[in-house]
């Protein structure tokens, strides 16, 4: 009798992950067990089934955007997996992928014949199996990674593991991938730049408007009404200015400028500049103008000489007065020199007298010393005893007193003479300075008088005479200038009027320049680019809303789906939990799903609660459950979902990859009991690296039709698999 659901008959693998040469693994029994250590190839073998059916390999994070060559054996250029299944019909599925090719090829063969006739093999396969990859993960294949996530302390990782157990990873990926931040950032950045540009424009506009207003006011100060500020008035003014300049230039024989009619503020300013130069040229070419300039220059020079001479004469007068005043007080230079010589002579004599007195004193004292030492004890004449020592000592003291007094007087006199000499020397120094100053002043007056004489063309006898002649000459030149200037006055008035017109032209040009700039800025404000920015911002806003809509819908589906699964499977989850965990107190289990905002995204949050049905006490599983007990929760969920799903899809096998992680002996025994029941309904494919669990499985299925594959240490040639 044909089976109702598909079971695996065998898998042929080559070039896939650790598999190199083609290897066929037979699955022809209700129970297939893979035993071996970590990295021996068990998960790759199970993953080959998943990849073959769905082109997915959930056990390892593979960047799907690339060519996914991580799926290939490093020495192979092609991965190939052939999965043969029996059931309602024979189904042979072949999936292959070449190196550097992203797309994998699928071929299926049914009872009816080879797959070439099947237009859409993917669709045909799903129609036969009646389930998709998400259902497969939820109800057929328990990945060890899904369980592992449940055993961590990280609540986000646990929620993610629960989502994976419920086959919701795709929705989670989409929900996470629809990250509004990018859109929001783009809106923020574009808005900021738009506003920045508008602010800058406004600032420029304010500046230009203000400057335009000031230029208009300045024009008004030159009798140009605001309303008349424009190129038309500027051109009229230009025309009459040019006519006048041309006429006068012609009359004085100056070059007549040719200037085109200004069409802008720039050419208006240029025209004004050229006309100003012309006015300057006219002035220089006016008759008598050169003589006036020459007279003015001579006058300047003479006035300067006059001023310098007056200053130097004043300086000479002061020096002369100072020296006279000094002589009156201290005497002349000759007298001071004579006094100094007299004082010096006196000093020399006093010094000599002091030296001589000192010498005499020494001689007398030496004589007395001699007498004191060598005088006879008795008088050679009277024979009377002589006390020479006392007498000499007395005489010495008298001599020292007399001479000392003399020397003191001499010293005082010498000091007085010295002071007098110092005073005289100082006065002589001052007298020298004053004489030098006077000499210098005289010399300077002489020099400038030479210049004056040269300028006036006649010798000058004294400063006073020089001043008088210079004054006379200046008055004369001034009179000549006035005489020459009189006929030029009318022409000058004409030129000044032209200069006023030029100023008016310039004022209009400046006002026009600011007006033009203001208009340019106003035009920029109306640029199409701003409209386009607004349009883009609107589109980004719309995108933001659309992304929000989609993300919201995805999150609702994700949440509703999880809730629906939990509601539907909860009785069975509780049953498996009770059997697996056998908790002495928290005998019951509740799982609540609530949407929770984490890191800016709404995700499913699973609240797993252990409870006591008798007293109603509750505990959060994360707070009190061991990792083994958490694995039991994961297993309960998977087994319940697998059991529910068995009603509808067409897959008659169940894959459990390393389900005994962190379980203690009692949990493992309970799991074996459950698996024994499962094996009666479905083909059971189970892998384990846990030697205790392996023994239990062997014992559990010792009477069943089971095949055990022992996976040896993997080598570059592929896994070493031995059926035992």
């Amino acid at each position: 009798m044909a089976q109702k659901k598909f079971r695996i008959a065998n898998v042929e693998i080559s070039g896939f992950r650790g598999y190199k040469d083609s290897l066929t693994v037979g699955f022809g029994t209700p129970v297939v067990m893979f035993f071996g250590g970590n990295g021996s190839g068990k998960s790759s073998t199970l993953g080959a089934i998943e990849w073959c059916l769905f082109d997915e390999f959930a056990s390892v994070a593979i960047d799907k955007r690339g060519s996914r060559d991580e799926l290939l054996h490093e020495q192979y250029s092609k991965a190939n997996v052939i999965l043969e299944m029996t059931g309602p019909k024979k189904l042979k599925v072949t999936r292959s992928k070449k190196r550097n090719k992203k797309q994998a090829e699928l071929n299926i063969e049914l009872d009816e014949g080879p797959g070439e006739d099947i237009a859409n093999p993917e669709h045909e396969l799903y129609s036969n199996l009646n389930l998709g990859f998400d259902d497969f993960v939820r109800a057929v294949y328990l990945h060890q990674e899904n369980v592992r996530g449940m055993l961590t302390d990280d609540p986000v990782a646990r929620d993610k593991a629960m989502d994976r157990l419920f086959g919701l990873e795709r929705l989670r990926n989409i929900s996470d991938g629809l990250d509004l931040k990018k859109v929001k950032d783009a809106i923020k950045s574009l808005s900021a730049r738009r506003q920045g540009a508008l602010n800058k424009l406004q600032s420029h506009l304010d500046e230009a408007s203000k400057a335009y207003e000031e230029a208009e006011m300045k024009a008004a100060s030159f009798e140009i009404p605001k309303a008349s500020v424009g190129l038309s008035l500027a051109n009229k003014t230009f025309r009459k200015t040019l006519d006048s300049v041309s006429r006068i230039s012609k009359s004085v024989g100056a070059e007549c400028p040719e200037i085109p009619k200004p069409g802008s503020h720039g050419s208006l300013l240029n025209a004004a500049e050229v006309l100003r130069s012309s006015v300057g040229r006219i002035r220089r070419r006016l008759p008598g103008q050169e003589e006036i300039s020459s007279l003015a220059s001579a006058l300047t020079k003479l006035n300067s000489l006059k001023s310098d001479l007056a200053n130097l004469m004043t300086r000479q007068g002061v020096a002369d007065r100072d020296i006279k005043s000094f002589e009156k007080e201290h005497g002349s230079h000759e007298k001071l020199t004579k006094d100094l010589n007299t004082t010096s002579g006196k000093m020399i004599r006093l010094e000599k007298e002091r030296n001589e007195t000192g010498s005499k004193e020494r001689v007398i004292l030496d004589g007395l010393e001699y007498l004191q030492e060598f005088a006879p004890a008795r008088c050679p004449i009277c024979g009377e005893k002589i006390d020479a020592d006392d007498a000499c000592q007395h005489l010495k003291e008298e001599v020292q007193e007399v001479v000392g007094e003399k020397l003191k007087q001499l010293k005082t006199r010498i000091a007085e003479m010295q002071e007098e000499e110092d005073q005289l020397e100082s006065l002589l120094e001052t007298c020298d300075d004053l004489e030098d100053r006077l000499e210098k002043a005289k010399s300077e007056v002489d020099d400038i008088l030479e210049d004056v004489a040269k300028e006036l063309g006649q010798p000058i006898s004294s400063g006073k005479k020089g001043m008088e002649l210079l004054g006379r000459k200046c008055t004369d030149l001034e009179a000549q200038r006035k005489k020459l200037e009189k006929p030029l006055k009318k022409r000058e008035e004409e030129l000044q009027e032209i200069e006023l017109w030029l100023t008016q032209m310039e004022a209009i040009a400046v006002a026009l320049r600011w007006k033009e700039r203001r208009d340019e800025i106003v035009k920029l404000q109306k640029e199409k680019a701003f409209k386009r920015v607004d349009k883009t911002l609107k589109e980004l806003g719309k995108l933001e809303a659309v992304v929000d809509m989609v993300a919201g819908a995805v999150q609702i589906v994700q949440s509703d789906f999880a809730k629906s699964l939990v509601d539907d499977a909860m009785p069975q989850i509780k049953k498996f939990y009770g059997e697996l965990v056998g908790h002495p107190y928290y005998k019951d289990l509740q799982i609540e799903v609530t949407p929770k905002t984490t890191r800016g995204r709404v995700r499913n949050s699973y609240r797993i609660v252990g409870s006591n049905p008798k007293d109603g006490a509750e505990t959060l599983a994360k707070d009190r459950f061991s990792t083994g007990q958490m694995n039991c929760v994961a297993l309960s969920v998977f087994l319940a979902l697998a059991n529910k799903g068995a009603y509808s899809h067409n897959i008659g096998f169940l894959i459990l990859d390393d389900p005994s992680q962190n379980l203690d002996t009692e949990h493992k025994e309970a799991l074996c009991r459950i698996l024994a029941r499962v094996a009666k309904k479905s083909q059971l494919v189970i892998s384990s690296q846990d030697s205790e669990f392996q023994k239990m499985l062997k014992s559990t299925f010792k009477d069943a039709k089971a095949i055990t594959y022992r996976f040896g240490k993997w080598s570059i040639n592929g896994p070493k698999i031995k059926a035992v």
Partner: protein
Amino acid sequence: MYWEADSNGGLILTDYLELVKNRLEENYKDSPMLDDAVVLVAKAFDSESAGGKTAVQDILKEIVRKLTEGTVTELEAIESLLEEV
């Protein structure tokens, strides 16, 4: 009820895309943006199949890039003009 499986046997093949589309149509039936949302969600599912979460992020990046690309260039031109004025 999303899970249609029951004891009478139902379709378990979960088509999340259809579910999300249905949800969008239900929630935003009068929205002028519904069509765009349906297109975006289809793109998101395609991208997820082809490259997971990162690929979904990439389509959003690409849409933003396409929307802003020309505008940013024009804005830069205006900013440059503003420097000259």
